[in-house]
């Protein structure tokens, strides 16, 4: 199994309490009302993002926090932490990379009218997973 997908599935299962499986992105294009991002520097240089719609973001936060409704700031915080754990879990799985790769603090963008562009010009890996029938996209874009 690709390392990124494995890292995402483990974090969702442990921290969100939900098994997620990859689906075809063309059949489930995510509505990206929330995008959490973590920068990577060192042996791996680039950005890892997690995107989903607002309802899914709220449901993820609710699941992480034990079933309570949460303020928008907590939803963003939860999504940022989830992205942080995916990035950490991903780099921990790459032998020899973990010691030489640093993570930034999470940043979360929300809203209906934004475009996301990364200047990382190297390889890009993406996986889309269904969380309660809604797509969640995780992308890793690396600098060449």
């Amino acid at each position, binding site marked *: 199994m690709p390392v990124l997908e494995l890292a995402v599935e*483990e974090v969702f299962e442990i921290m969100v309490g939900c098994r997620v499986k990859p689906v075809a992105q063309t059949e489930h294009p995510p509505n990206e009302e929330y995008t959490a991002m973590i920068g990577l520097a060192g042996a791996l240089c680039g950005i890892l993002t997690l995107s989903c719609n607002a309802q899914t973001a709220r449901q993820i936060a609710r699941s*992480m*926090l034990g079933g309570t409704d949460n303020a928008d700031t907590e939803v963003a*915080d939860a999504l940022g932490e989830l992205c942080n754990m995916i990035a950490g879990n991903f*780099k921990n799985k790459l032998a020899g990379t973990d010691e030489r790769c640093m993570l930034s603090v999470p940043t979360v963008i929300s809203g209906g009218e934004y475009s996301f562009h990364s200047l990382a010009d190297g390889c890009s890996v993406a996986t889309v997973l269904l969380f309660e029938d809604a797509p969640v996209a995780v992308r890793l874009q690396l600098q060449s």
Partner: protein
Amino acid sequence: MDKIRALIVDDSSVMRKIVERSLRQAGVELEKVVEASNGAEALVALQHNVVDLILCDINMPVMDGLEFVRQSATVENAKGVPIVMITTEGSESHVVQALSAGARGYIRKPFTPEQVKEHVVSVLGKKL
């Protein structure tokens, strides 16, 4: 196990809640939970609170978890209090740095309540 007083240090309020919930899910009875969002706040909190256990993130603004562990050694209320790091940083060098600084345990995120329980039992030396 007696009820314990815990200090949870993390710059994410969501993660502080998750850590507290994991302690409760693990069967740890909490008498009091004190929260701090970075190492500097945690040092101030220790001036005013006596705790039995400290759970601390590493990557935080203002003062990170490793520096907090080093500086807490001089705080009266922190003497003899076990510190367990809870962090996404999973490298051996981070573990060695944390343990060398004085931390007694190291939990990698993501974590399960069972892992939290295992470390709490280990550092407090009591059975739940």
